[in-house]
Each structure stands twice: as structure tokens, then as C-alpha cells.
């Protein structure tokens, strides 16, 4: 039996509640059958239907179950309108009923009582006494006057007939097959063919055509007598049909009752960052990122959190990351090429993450990669070139000003001045470049800009049976080192001969092949193979990045880059050498060698799905196996400091070597070290059920999941879990979902390995209530949802080869007994075990609302969450040390508690004004945590209690915003013990004892992680042009100035030091009086941090901007292409921040480390995308 009815799709089953869409699908069906009438070939009919089905399947990953509907009707109602009966006929049998209003008053009421009644009986009942009869014309019931002849019918249909044809394309100009084209007010229509063309006969010249397709905005176009009507459809801005990737599956957005945000690959790619995490910043509410370094390929350069952090120990705070169900660690995640991403889902509440059980407490990021679509091969090539420039660059003072300040500091310390007036004059005039050099090391060492190139090719396509998406890419990101030549002939020859690249750079080679195989009609396979090869390079020498900031290494006058004879310069011994006698930094860069890190990451993922519709419709069985392997290696070419450099004394033109023992350039030594290989094998098996029965939709999942992980010599980390989810909704109005995981991990003792993590969520789609639709028809979505559940975190900061529940004795050091040396190995009591140790648990509560009005022109969502993490594995700090257990060896106990609350708001608007499309989207996230319990020793003073404050709040002195002005001031103020000078920082005496000491340190200020994140995305399209700008801000976090960042004469003098306190500038000074031994004073931020050294980190950035132009399709087609797009984009284009202004370092850089990191890079990117 292959009747059309078998392939019938009921609207309810397809899950399409939008009434317009329902109509469309009806029409599509009807149209297809009608157009196939012409051929009267059964086979062609089936094929056409199948095409439509394919389209629908692509749009709705949910399996549509096919059901046979006999043309029988069950209906038992009193006083029902004929129209409603006809509707019911359509619903239950799929047959449409056509009539004309002058023939039949469809609103007249009748009483019906049908039980499995055949269609004939129903029609007869309905038409009784109307004088009408009907014919069934290929699944359409046409009502006509009795005894009317065929010719009459034609006359009845239309008097003036037009034949209208045209093509339907999307906004990119690509043809859209399967679009329904309907004459407004009727159910007549056709659908477009595979080339997007349609033809409609018998149309009145004042008719209005309605073009509609799932996923696109419906357009109504008056024919106005034309015979050619071409139409472009825009993708629907309504998100109602959007498919959301959830854990182990997908859901329609309407049916989601959990807190999930999803972003599409195209939106990610609008930010031209080379690493995925930087492309996500500011786009997803609840996602917090901090970019810690701008170094190409730097590991751990970014931190990524979902809804802030909720644990204060070593436990991992980073979310679980799954790429097509394969677990990635954060470093592997950072290597993902945004180009291969289809979508990123961020799972935030318990109902979304509970199925990840013991791994879900920090939230989950699901990355889906792109897959092929059936059709002819589409080749897409994308090439991008970018220029990167540092977001900021330190502007140190020149030699003259440095000398002035140093002399002043020495005078303040009652020490003799270092430079004479003549010296200073020579620095200023620059007349003695060798004896009195004045070097801007930033300019000497670093380029203004460096380059990134990024090239990708994708091929995708396939048939019904096999679909493929294959991509390969190469990215090269260059570094900021300037190529420096050795000029002395011997060195130059050596440098030329070696010809090595020691610049910072990253090279990333990627490939991915995602293949979908339809083995039988019920069995599908997916095979994903992906690999990354990454190479990160940096100079072997320590510190070109940091030394330019460090007074002890590089002052502007330390040495000239080259001596008159071309040899590398070296310091005047009278003035002191660089720390550790570090050799000439330019020479080190020219000759020092490189340090190169090589990473491979490969993963294979095979999954199969057997549909078991035969058993019961909607049931399927899935099994998958994923294997990933990561390797790393380190290759170094090293010369250390082993090349000659000379101090040139211009007075007698003499050259003194830096190292009298070093006469030649040393050869490079090579080293190679293997890193820690990592393997992970994951096996999953699941049963899924997804079915709509009438107005009820149920879905279910039971899943078995097992992972074995192995990392270098560490103990294997094994995981096993059973997961379930059951969801039910009634007409997409009332949503219910219960899910959970019963998980076990090898990290804990046998009796403590398993735990159930359940979650429940409820949702109410108010907008799907008929009364609501009637009252506020412009509201498309209004959904309230709430969830409560428990999730765990078993990644509790183990360093590797350890089981926390065990007492351990370990090997420690050696001792040499004997009259001759004999090495004896030691053993001692090591860390203590805690038999009861277990994972952290978080109770997550979430309330949310989603809305969309005016056809999605304005949409958004609001979420409130209240998370409570408990059983945080903490080392106790109230155990007395005379018990004799080192604090680090104390057993961890599950006692910490943290509360983390916040909210997220996302709101967006889209509109089309003439040819201009505008798209604005903003999000605001707030998450504030509070330590509820952490086993803190009783605080001596209330201000020294960390419990009750956000994680990471700094204990510090409070600067009184003033300085010790004079002797009288010192005498009348609280002072620290020890040396004190006029113009030094005055701290608050919290306990009023007249002495500033550790009792006066208080937990105050914000932690380093912002608690507020704001993103604002503005998009404008006009014709082929589109412009997209992303503004991002982070608020309420502090940046602590580290040891070397701003301390005079640890760091090179900066403009901030010009505002130092002097008796003359006492009123306007912003920096304390200078001293040469700043670190020895109470003002040293290392050890004595204070609010003086703490700066609000708040920043606002133009995170990205993209302008693209898509060439008109006809033009492109002439060139034999499908698509041609040109684009220019920027990343981190501008930053407003106090930190940047005051201390000249990036606000996102890790506290205390600013001098040692590579500056963040502004990227200006140009690209070209071609599709064949």
C-alpha cells in the first residue's frame, strides 16, 4: 500500500502550532498531490512528496511519525459549525474541503455524532438540505451544486484567469524549493520545485499570493495583473520553530522548559577572533569569559564560566564542554575553529544539566558541528587576512625622565644621586647615543602590527543515502617580535646560517569530516572524524614581553642596541648591569632560539540510530562510540645567553666584554620533550522515544554512558552513568520535564561512587492558549518556566595520580649515608585521606520567561537563578598545626557552601524598514556568589572574615586616599612600624590602635571575576550589505596591581610616576613619593596589598564589528559562482577602562601577572567567501 495517505503528515505531529504554518503544510500536501495529478504517475507523486518530506525533515529534526489515517471521522458535538466539521475532516483524514461562500453558509450549526464514520457519510450529513453535492478529487473534497456540469465548474472558479509564474529565493539568492504559494483567501496553491520555480494557473488579476515556508517569513504579494512574480523570502525572525540542541538531543524552542541559550555558527563567525571562546564573549547571557593573554595559541589564555563561579577551592570552575557529544577539555575547546561550528548551546539550569549529573554543576556547553545537506556538492572557500595590533602598549618614560625620577628617589633615601646634571643633559639631548643611550625598547623589540591568515575550504552535499560535510583549514597567527639582525659579521653569519623563526606564532591545521549514512530506511549512521594539529612558538629567551616593563632588566639607558662596530651593546658597569647579567635583549631575540609546542588532537565518533517505528512509532535506539586522543610535545632550540656583547665606552672608544669568558657564539642546543598523552573512550547507548498522539507530545530518553580517561601516568579516571529524561507537553501549552542521572566515578571510594541527580521543570506557553491568542494575537510566544534540580562536580582539583579517600605515604627526598656517598630514598606520611570524600553538589533553581511579539520582531527572555553549592571539597584550616600535618596534607572534607544568585535578561528586536533590515540584541547577566561556609579560623576582627563575601575577595589595607604630608601628620596618624617618609601612602587604622599592621587588613572590594556582563549587538542590512557591531562590557570586578606592575624601579617608570608625591605637588599627587627600595616598604603590594593598588576593572569594549557585502546573485552566477561575499571585520576595536588608563594594562589580564603576558590584540580582518 502506498497510498498518499500513508505519507500524510498531520500538523500536530509535525509539532507546528503556528496556525499559518498549519495551513501551509496542508497546502503543501494538497499542492503536491495536485501538481502530480498532471503526470498521473504514481511514482512521481511519491518522489515529490518525498522531496517535501526531506525539506521538512531537515527543518524538524524531530522524527515525524508516519501514520495511516483511514478516511474516517470521529466527532461528537452539538451545535458545531460546518466549517469546524470540515476542519476536523482535514485534521483527521487530511482531506481538504473546498467550497465557495455563496454556495454554503459554513457557519450554520449542525449536530454531529460520528464514530469512525466514513467520509461519504460525514459529507452527506453536512450537505443535507443545502442543495449541494461534492466530488472527491484526489484528496480534495470539492463542494458543488448538484447537477452542475464540469464547464460550470470552470466558470464558477474564475472569470478572469492569469497564469502567474516566478521563482522564490532566500535573501542570499539561493532558490527555495518547497515554498507554498497560495492564493489568499483560498486554499488553492502550489509549491515551488527544486529550482524554486512555481507556476499557478487560473488566478484573478487582483489576487494576492501568499508565499510561505517553515523557517521563513511569510510574504503576501498582490499579483496586480503581472504574470511574473519573483520573491525573496527572509528567514523567519520568529524563533518559535527554532530547534534547540539540548543534552543528548534536540527540542523545539517552544517545548523547552529549561534555561538554555543557543547561538548559531553564523553569529559566532561575525567576530573574527581565532579562538572560539573569544567569539562567544558578550553574545550569550550567563556566559562569562576573560581573555588573559593575547599570545598566539597561548594555553589557558581565556577563562570561561557559566553564571559565574560557585566554588572556592581547586575544583574546576569551568563548564563541561561537549562537541558532538565528545568531551573536550578547555584547551581543546579553545582550538576549535569557529568555521566548523553549527551552533553552540549553553545549558544553565539543573533541568538542562542534570542529565550530565556529576559533571554538570558548572554548566554545560554543547557545540554542534556542521553537517552536509543533500544536494549537489557545494564548495565554499573562505580566506581571511587580518592585521593585529596591541590593544594597548606601555609608554615608558624616556631616559631623561627616568634619570630624573631615579635621582629623586635616591635623594629621598638619603643616597647619592646616580646621574649628574651632565648625564641627564646628554640623555635629554641624545648627543651621546652610546655613552648615554635612550632606547624605546617597545619600538626596538616589537612590531606595530602582525598578521593573521585564516583559510578554509568546505565541501558539503550528498544524496538521500549519504551526506557529507568535509572541511579543512589552516590558520597562521603571527607574533609581535620584530626581526632583529645581528650586525657583527660573525654573529650575522651564524644567524643567517641558522635561519630560524623564533617569533611568537600559532599555526593551526584542522580538518573535519562529518558523514551521515542512511543504511536502511530505519538505520542511520554518523561518522565524525576531526583532527587538529597546533603549533605554538615563542622565543626561548625569557622575557622580551616582560622585560620591557622591568626596571631591573631594561631601562631606557641600560645599553644601546648596537655598538658602533655593530656588536650588541651591553651595560655600563658603573651604572649597574641588568638583573642576572641578562645579555642584550635584542641579541637574545636575534640569536636566542625558540621554544615550540606541538599539540595534536584527534577524535573519532561513530554513532548509529535504529528507528524502531515498527515496534512503536517514535522509538529509536542509538549507540555511539567516541575516541579522542591528544598528544603534546615540546621542541626547543636554545642558546641561552651565550653570545658576546660589549660595553662600549665612548670616552676611550674601548670595548669591554660582558662576559670575559665568552669569546664566541655558542652553538644551539636542541631538546625535545614529550608531553602528557591523553586518551578518552566514551561509549553511549540510548533509547529515545518521541511521539505526538493527538494533542499530547511525549518524549523520553534513557541513556547509558561510560567514559574511560587516561592521562599520562595518572590513575585512570572512569565514569559511568545512567541518564533519563521524560518530557510531556499538551499542545505545547503545558510543559513538563523530569530528568536526571545516576552517575558514578572512580574518584571516590566504592560505597560513595554513585548518586542520583534529579531535576524537574515546568513550563507554560501562555501564548499558545486560544483565549490568549484571541486577546493578544500579536504575542507569538509568552512562556513561563521554572526548574529545580541537583547536579554535581566531581572534578575537584585532583592533581592526577591520587585517590582522595586514601591515606598516602609517599617517596620524598634522598639522604646520603655512609663513609662514601650512598643514596638512600625516603618515605614519609603524605596526604591524609578522607574515606567519606565525595563530589560537590549544586542545587539549582531557575525561573524564566521567554517572549516574542509582533512575529518575532521583539523577543527576549528573562531568567532568575538561585544556586546553592554544598559539599565543596575544602581543606580545613582550623586544624592546629602542632598536630603535625602539613596544611597541604590535610584531608579534604566536603564542607564548603556557596550561594550563587543572579539574573539574565536578553532582549532583541528586528525589523525591516524598506530595504534596511535592523537587528538589535542585548543581554545583561548578573551573578553574585557568596561564601556561606569555608572552615575559616575565627577572625580576629570582623573585617577579616572571608565567609559571607564573594569568592576571591581580596584581603587588603584600605588606602585613605591621601599621603603622610609631613612630620606632624605622621605624628598624629596611625603609622606602620618601620621606616616611613613624607608622601607615602596612608592606610586606615581599622582597629584604632595607632599602628598599621596586619590587623588593619580587611576583605574589601570586588573579586577579579566580573559579576555583571553586558553585550549589545547591532546589525544592519541593506541590500547585499550587512553591518554588525558588538559592544561588550563587564562590571564590578577589581584588578589588583601585581608586584612588578607599578612599583617604581621594579617596573620602568611610567607616566603615572610623574604624578608622584613631592612636597610641592602634595595636593595633586596621585602616587606616593619615590623610593628606590619600594618593595622593602610597607607599601609593597606583594604581601601588603591595599586599595591603592586595586583598580576597578570595569570596561566597555567594541568587541567586534563586521561589514560584509554579498554580490548580487545574477552577477555572481555569470561568473559561475553561487555566492561571493566580501567582508571586513574587527575584534577588540576599542576599549574604555580605568585600568588601561591608569596602569596601561588590559583589564582582562590576570591579576598580578600583567607584566608577563602578551598584550591582547586588536584584530582587523579582511575576507572573501566564495561558494561554487
Amino acid at each position, binding site marked *: 500500500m502506498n497510498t498518499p495517505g500513508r505519507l500524510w503528515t498531520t500538523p500536530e505531529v509535525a509539532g507546528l502550532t503556528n496556525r499559518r504554518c498549519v495551513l501551509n503544510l496542508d497546502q503543501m500536501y494538497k499542492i503536491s498531490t495536485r501538481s502530480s495529478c498532471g503526470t498521473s504517475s504514481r511514482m512521481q507523486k511519491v518522489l515529490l512528496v518525498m522531496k517535501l518530506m526531506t525539506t521538512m525533515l531537515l527543518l524538524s529534526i524531530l522524527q515525524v511519525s508516519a501514520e495511516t489515517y483511514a478516511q474516517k471521522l470521529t466527532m461528537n458535538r452539538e451545535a458545531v459549525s460546518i466549517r469546524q466539521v470540515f476542519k476536523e475532516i482535514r485534521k483527521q483524514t487530511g482531506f481538504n474541503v473546498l467550497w465557495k461562500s455563496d454556495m454554503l453558509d459554513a457557519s450554520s450549526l449542525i449536530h454531529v455524532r460520528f464514530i469512525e464514520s466514513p467520509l461519504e457519510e460525514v459529507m452527506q450529513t453536512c450537505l443535507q438540505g443545502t442543495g449541494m453535492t461534492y466530488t472527491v478529487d484526489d484528496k480534495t473534497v470539492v463542494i458543488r451544486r448538484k447537477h452542475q456540469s464540469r464547464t460550470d465548474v470552470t466558470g464558477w472558479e474564475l472569470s478572469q484567469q492569469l497564469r502567474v509564474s516566478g521563482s522564490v529565493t532566500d535573501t542570499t539568492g539561493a532558490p527555495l524549493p518547497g515554498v507554498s504559494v497560495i492564493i489568499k483567501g483560498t486554499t488553492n496553491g502550489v509549491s515551488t520545485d527544486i529550482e524554486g520555480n512555481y507556476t499557478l494557473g487560473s488566478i484573478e488579476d487582483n489576487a494576492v499570493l501568499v508565499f510561505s515556508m517553515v523557517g521563513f517569513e511569510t510574504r503576501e504579494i498582490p499579483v496586480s495583473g503581472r504574470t511574473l512574480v519573483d520573491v525573496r523570502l527572509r528567514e523567519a525572525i520568529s524563533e518559535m520553530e527554532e530547534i534547540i540542541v539540548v543534552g543528548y538531543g534536540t527540542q523545539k524552542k517552544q517545548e523547552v522548559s529549561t534555561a538554555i541559550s543557543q547561538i548559531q555558527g553564523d553569529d559566532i563567525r561575525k567576530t573574527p577572533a581565532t579562538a572560539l571562546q573569544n567569539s562567544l564573549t558578550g553574545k550569550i547571557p550567563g556566559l562569562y569569559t576573560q581573555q588573559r593573554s593575547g599570545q598566539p595559541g597561548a594555553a589557558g589564555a581565556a577563562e570561561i564560566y557559566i553564571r559565574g563561579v560557585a566554588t572556592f577551592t581547586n575544583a574546576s570552575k569551568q563548564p563541561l564542554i561537549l562537541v558532538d557529544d565528545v568531551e573536550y577539555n578547555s584547551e581543546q575547546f579553545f582550538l576549535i575553529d569557529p568555521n566548523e561550528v553549527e551552533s553552540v548551546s549553553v545549558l544553565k539550569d539543573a533541568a538542562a544539566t542534570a542529565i550530565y549529573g556529576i559533571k554538570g554543576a558548572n554548566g554545560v556547553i554543547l557545540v554542534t558541528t556542521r553537517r552536509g545537506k543533500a544536494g549537489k556538492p557545494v564548495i565554499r572557500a573562505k580566506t581571511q587576512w587580518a592585521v593585529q595590533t596591541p590593544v594597548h602598549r606601555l609608554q615608558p618614560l624616556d631616559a631623561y625622565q627616568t634619570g630624573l625620577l631615579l635621582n629623586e628617589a635616591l635623594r629621598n633615601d638619603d643616597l647619592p644621586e646616580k646621574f649628574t646634571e651632565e648625564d641627564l643633559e646628554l640623555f635629554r639631548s641624545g648627543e651621546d647615543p652610546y655613552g648615554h643611550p635612550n632606547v624605546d625598547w617597545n619600538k626596538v623589540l616589537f612590531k606595530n602590527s602582525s598578521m593573521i591568515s585564516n583559510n578554509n575550504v568546505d565541501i558539503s552535499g550528498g544524496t538521500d543515502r549519504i551526506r557529507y560535510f568535509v572541511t579543512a583549514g589552516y590558520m597562521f597567527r603571527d607574533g609581535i617580535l620584530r626581526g632583529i639582525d645581528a650586525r657583527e659579521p660573525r654573529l650575522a653569519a651564524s644567524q643567517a646560517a641558522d635561519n630560524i623563526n623564533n617569533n611568537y606564532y600559532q599555526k593551526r591545521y584542522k580538518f573535519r569530516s562529518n558523514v551521515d549514512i542512511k543504511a536502511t530506511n530505519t538505520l542511520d549512521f554518523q561518522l565524525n572524524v576531526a583532527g587538529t594539529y597546533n603549533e605554538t612558538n615563542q622565543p626561548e629567551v625569557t622575557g622580551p614581553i616582560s622585560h620591557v616593563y622591568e626596571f631591573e632588566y631594561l631601562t631606557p639607558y641600560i645599553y644601546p642596541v648596537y655598538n658602533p662596530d655593530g656588536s650588541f651593546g651591553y651595560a655600563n658597569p658603573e651604572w649597574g648591569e641588568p638583573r642576572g647579567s641578562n645579555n642584550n635583549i635584542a641579541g637574545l631575540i636575534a640569536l636566542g632560539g625558540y621554544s615550540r609546542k606541538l599539540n595534536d588532537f584527534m577524535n573519532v565518533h561513530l554513532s548509529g540510530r535504529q528507528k524502531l517505528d515498527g*515496534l512503536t512509532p517514535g522509538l529509536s535506539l542509538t549507540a555511539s562510540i567516541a575516541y579522542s586522543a591528544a598528544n603534546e610535545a615540546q621542541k626547543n632550540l636554545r642558546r641561552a645567553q651565550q653570545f658576546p656583547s660589549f660595553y662600549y665606552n665612548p670616552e676611550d672608544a674601548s670595548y669591554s666584554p660582558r662576559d670575559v669568558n665568552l669569546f664566541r657564539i655558542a652553538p644551539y642546543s636542541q631538546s625535545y620533550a614529550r608531553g602528557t598523552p591523553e586518551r578518552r573512550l566514551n561509549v553511549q547507548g540510548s533509547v529515545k522515544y518521541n511521539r505526538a498522539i493527538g494533542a499530547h507530545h511525549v518524549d523520553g530518553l534513557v541513556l547509558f554512558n561510560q567514559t574511560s580517561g587516561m592521562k599520562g601516568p595518572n590513575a585512570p579516571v572512569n565514569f559511568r552513568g545512567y541518564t533519563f529524561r521524560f518530557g510531556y507537553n499538551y499542545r505545547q501549552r503545558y510543559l513538563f520535564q523530569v530528568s536526571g542521572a545516576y552517575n558514578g566515578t*572512580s574518584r571516590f571510594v566504592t560505597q560513595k561512587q554513585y548518586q542520583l541527580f534529579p531535576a524537574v521543570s515546568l513550563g507554560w506557553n501562555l501564548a499558545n492558549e486560544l483565549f490568549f491568542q484571541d486577546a493578544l494575537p500579536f504575542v507569538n510566544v509568552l512562556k513561563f518556566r521554572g526548574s529545580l534540580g541537583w547536579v554535581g562536580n566531581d572534578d575537584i582539583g585532583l592533581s592526577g595520580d591520587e585517590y582522595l579517600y586514601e591515606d598516602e605515604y609517599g617517596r620524598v627526598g634522598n639522604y646520603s*649515608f655512609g663513609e662514601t656517598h650512598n643514596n*638512600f630514598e625516603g618515605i614519609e606520611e603524605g596526604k591524609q585521606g578522607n574515606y567519606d570524600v565525595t563530589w560537590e553538589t549544586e542545587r539549582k533553581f531557575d525561573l524564566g520567561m521567554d517572549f516574542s511579539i509582533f512575529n518575532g520582531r521583539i523577543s527576549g527572555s528573562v531568567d532568575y537563578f538561585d544556586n546553592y553549592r554544598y559539599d565543596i571539597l575544602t581543606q580545613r584550616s582550623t586544624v592546629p*598545626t602542632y598536630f603535625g600535618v602539613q596544611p597541604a596534607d590535610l584531608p579534604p572534607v566536603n564542607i564548603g557552601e556557596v550561594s550563587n544568585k543572579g539574573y539574565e535578561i536578553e532582549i532583541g528586536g528586528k525589523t525591516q524598514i524598506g530595504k534596511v533590515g535592523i537587528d538589535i540584541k542585548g543581554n545583561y547577566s548578573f551573578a553574585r556568589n557568596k561564601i556561606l561556609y569555608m572552615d575559616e579560623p575565627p577572625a580576629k576582627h570582623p573585617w577579616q572574615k572571608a565567609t559571607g563575601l564573594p569568592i576571591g575577595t581580596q584581603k587588603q589595607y584600605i588606602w585613605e586616599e591621601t599621603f603622610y604630608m609631613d612630620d606632624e601628620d605622621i605624628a598624629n596618624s596611625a603609622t606602620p612600624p618601620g621606616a616611613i617618609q613624607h608622601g607615602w601612602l596612608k592606610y586606615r587604622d581599622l582597629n584604632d590602635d595607632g599602628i598599621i599592621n596586619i590587623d588593619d587588613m580587611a576583605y574589601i572590594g570586588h573579586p577579579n571575576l566580573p559579576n555583571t556582563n553586558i553585550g549589545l549587538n547591532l546589525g544592519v542590512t541593506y541590500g547585499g550589505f550587512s553591518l554588525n557591531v558588538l559592544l561588550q562590557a563587564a562590571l564590578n570586578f577589581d584588578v589588583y596591581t601585581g608586584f612588578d606592575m607599578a612599583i617604581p624601579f621594579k617596573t620602568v617608570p611610567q607616566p603615572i610616576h610623574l604624578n608622584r608625591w613631592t612636597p610641592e605637588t602634595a595636593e595633586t599627587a596621585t602616587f606616593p613619593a619615590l623610593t628606590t627600595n619600594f*618593595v622593602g616598604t610597607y607599601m609593597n603590594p606583594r*604581601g601588603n596589598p591595599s586599595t591603592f593598588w586595586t583598580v576597578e576593572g570595569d570596561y566597555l569594549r567594541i568587541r567586534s564589528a563586521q561589514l560584509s557585502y554579498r554580490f548580487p546573485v545574477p552577477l555572481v552566477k555569470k561568473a559561475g559562482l553561487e555566492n561571493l561575499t566580501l567582508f571586513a571585520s574587527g575584534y577588540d576595536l576599542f576599549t574604555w577602562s580605568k585600568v588601561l588608563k591608569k596602569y596601561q594594562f588590559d583589564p582582562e589580564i590576570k591579576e598580578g601577572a600583567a607584566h608577563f603576558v602578551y598584550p591582547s590584540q586588536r584584530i582587523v580582518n579582511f575576507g572573501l567567501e566564495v561558494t561554487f
Partner: protein
Amino acid sequence: MKNFFYTTIKGLAILVIIGCWGCQDEDSFLDKKVSASLNEQIVFADSAYTMDYLTAIYEGLYFWYNTGSSATATNGSWSEITDECETKWPGGHNVPNQVFDGTFGEPFYNRIAKLWSHFYTRIRQCNIYLENVNEESPLSNALKARTKAEIRFLRAYHYFLLMEGWGGVPLVGDTIYSLSSPNLQVRNSWAECVDYIVSELDAVAPMLPVRYTGRDYGRITRGACMALKSRVLLFAASPLYNGGSPAEEPALKELTGYPSHDETRWLKALQAAQDVVNLGVYELKTDNATRPGNGFYELFLERVSDEIILARMQGPNKQVERNHLPRSRGGNFLRYPTQELVDAFPMMNGLSIESPGSGYDPEDPYKNRDPRFYYTVIYNGASYFKRTSNQMEPVWTYKGASQDGLKPVTANTGTSTGYYSRKMMDERVTGDGSATTDRNHPVLFRYGGILLNLAEAAVETGDIPLAMEQLIALRRRAGIDPGADNRYGLPADPSQEEARQLVRNERFIELAFEMQRFWDLKRWKAGDWLDGAMMHGMQITKKGDEFSYQRIETRHRYFKDNLYYFPIPPDELAVNLGLIQNLGW
């Protein structure tokens, strides 16, 4: 809905099948995989492991010195805050240097807390050994007895280090605390601590051999027990502890020393030192034939020695050279002598440089000095082996000299006093070469030190001749000219005060860089004298081949009352209100 239930049942059935497949190895899949790690039962059931456990306690032998041992919970020997030396790092990096300004911030407290915790961890490790090496231990009874005696010495040694730092501390006896034990222990008085250590040492000394041979050489001997006892009693008799604690409050005074002075404590100290001498197994390493003072030089280069009573044993190494030589010799000059130390060395004739007739020439200050000077200090023009030229070459420290020349006190690229240390160094070993010396390093107790203990006690008990006798022995070995009176420059009949100063000066120079100076100044209660004192260096200017010498100031010293005792870690006080904090913290 009928279908749904039907499906659900089918689904569950499939899950059960999968689950059973998964569960079949339930026990093994998530259970512990490796068992290479050790625990208490395994260790003490095995004789070799048991001995390794003992080894680890030796490994942790703490010494107040910075040679990169894992045991150094703080950096620095504390000697850089005395008049003995200056340090490369002008502050901030090393805790002792915070002390220069009296700015005791959190890092200072943290390091002190680590130290406190380190010692108590050692004591716990000792107690674990004592408890577990019982009848069931596989060790022989003789070995059990001996090793337990070694352990009790090591425990006593760590208590003494605690007492040096904090005064009276909680004595935990043989208790091995469980983490839920009540936290009620309070500090024991100074007197109780002294008595406990002395009684332990008296108990174990007879159980230990006088001498070890072969592979056991380096273990705790009877002599080591007696040497530690000598040191403990020397402290007990010294001014700070013998009724001199600056604390006013009686409870604290009792914790930080004896409440009142008692002369007889010096007699005990005298006897303890005399007992070591009487043991008759130690002697001063003497060799003045090769060159004057050569015995003093080689004493530190020997693995097996008759002078060394206890050292922390290591294999061949160059720690002291690498840490302290100047840059031209591949060293890190972590600390280098002050002018004060240099001036403390007498002349070759034994007369101090201020003495009339000493022959000291301020324009040639390094000529004809005590031979020990030449083995302690690298001065401008002193010869030291140079790896690249493979010969002895002068080290130049004059102002402007390449590499090793005088640097400002705020720099850290060379000496700021004009000197480098060479105490305990092998002059054939440099920081940058591969050469090492198989030696005991560092020395914890040596016979020379015992003689100085004896001399000091003798002075305090009024037996001046006995004191002078010890100094003469040391000076004879040092290679000083005996002089016509055969008194090696020492006055014939010094007053007690003169003798005291002579003994203290001799201790300064003989034990320079041997981790003694800070503790000596403390127990002599010399804080008032040191506080605010300016240290000096020598700025040498080269003109042609001539040098001119000018004393320069380097840095002040801080030594207020609070520095006599370390602070009890604040967290320790917070969780145990019974503990009493030391003065000034």
C-alpha cells in the same frame, strides 16, 4: 497513551539489557586501578620501607640555611639581618629582608607559620615511627632500639629549633593526633622544654654508638646527642633565656625563658660541653704545614671527619659555591660579608686590627690577616679558581670592575660591600663548572663549636684560663702565629668582660656563615646594640695599579624586642585561645 506505556516498558527493558551489560564488571570499572602508593601498614610491615621512613626524617633535618633543600620552609639563614653579611636581594624576596624595615606583613607571618608547621610535622613523623616500630616490626631488636634512639634525637632536635624560634612551645610527647582530637594543648614553659629535651638526650645517648662506619656513617651518634645537649644548655644559660626575657607578663616570661637568673645554669652548660670533649673521639682538623690554616679550610671539604659531630649528609655537591661565589665564578652571591665581619678578623699575629702594634695598614687592609680570613672572605684581588682559564685568578671587587665590581646597595648585580663569601668552599669548585666536592654540608655541630661553647661557659663561670685555652686551641689550628708568649695574640690575663668579648668575637669569625650569628645575638640579648646599626662596606677605587680604600655605609639593621621570638601563627592562636602570643606580635 496505550502506545506510550507500551513503548516505555519496551524502552526500560532495553535499558535493563544495556545496564546489565554495563554492570557485569561493576566492581572493577570504577574501583581503584593502581596500587603503587604506600600507606602506614605497608611501610612498617617492610624492613626496607621502615628504614626509608627513617631516612626521610633525616632528609628533613632542618638547618637555618638557604641551600635549596626542600626542608627550607623559609628562605634565608637570618644572618643577613645581622652584622655578618649583606644580601643580594635588597628586600621583598626573602622574608628576613622584610625585617630590615620591621614591616612584618602577611608573607612574613605565612613563612613563619610554615616553619612552625614544618617542625611539628617532623615531630609527628618521629612519633609515627616510635609507635609503629613495635613488636611486629620486622626490624631486629637491636636495630629497633638504635633507630628509635635516633628518632628521639631527631625529635628533640626539632623541638630545639622550635625553642630557638619561639621559646617554650607545646610539647606533644608521643601523641599522634587524629584530626578530631581536642585542640587544648598550650605552650609548655621554657624550663619544661629544656628539661624534656635534655632528658630525652640523656636517655638515648647511651643507646647510640660513639662512631659509625661504612654505610651507617652520618647517623646520629652519642656525640651528636651530647653536642645538642651542650647547645641547649648554652641557650638555657644565656642572658635572654636566663631570666632576661623582655616579656613583663609572668605567664609569657615563663614561656620565653627562665623567670629568674641562675648562675648555675652556666655550670650545666660548661659540664655539657666538657662532656663532649671528654668523650675523646673528636679533634680539631689541623694542618698548618701545607699552608697556614689549611686544616680550617679542609675541614669543610671532607666527607669523613673527626671534627664534625653532625652534618646534614649529601652527595658530592657545590651548593655553597653556586649560591655564594661572585658572578665571574658562576655563583649567585646570595649573601656576602660586611665590613663588620672583615674587621672582626685579627691579624696573623692574633691581635685585633685596633690593637696597637697589630700591624694593620688601612691602605693595605687584607695583608697579614688571620688565615681564617682568607678562607672566609673573597676581597679585592683575592685568588679563586676560574673555570674558563683553569687557574687561580684574582677576583676584582673595586668600583667599576667588570662583573664583580662594587654595586650600589639597591642593585642586585654584585656585592655592595666589596666582598664575597668563600666560607666552606672548595677553591677548585666554581658555580658554573661541573666539579663538586664530596663533603658534609652543611655542618650542624662540630668540635670547634663545642670548644666555643665551653669557652663561653667557662668565661661566665669565671674560669678565664679554661676559656683562653679553648681559644688558643682554635687559633693554633687556624694557623695564627703563636707569638713569643705562645698565646696566639691573646692577652695573658684578661678580665671577665675582656674574655667575654674575645670569646664572642672568636665565635663570630670561627663560625661565620655557619648559621650561628643571628641566634648568638639573640641569646646574648644584643638587640639594642644591633637595632639601627649601620652596616658598612669597602669602596675600593682603582687608579693605575694603585687602590685606595674608603669605608661606605650600606644598610641599617632592625632588631626590636619582637624579633627575639617569632610570632605564633595567627591562625594557630585563633583556633586555640589557650596559646599565648609572643611579645610585640
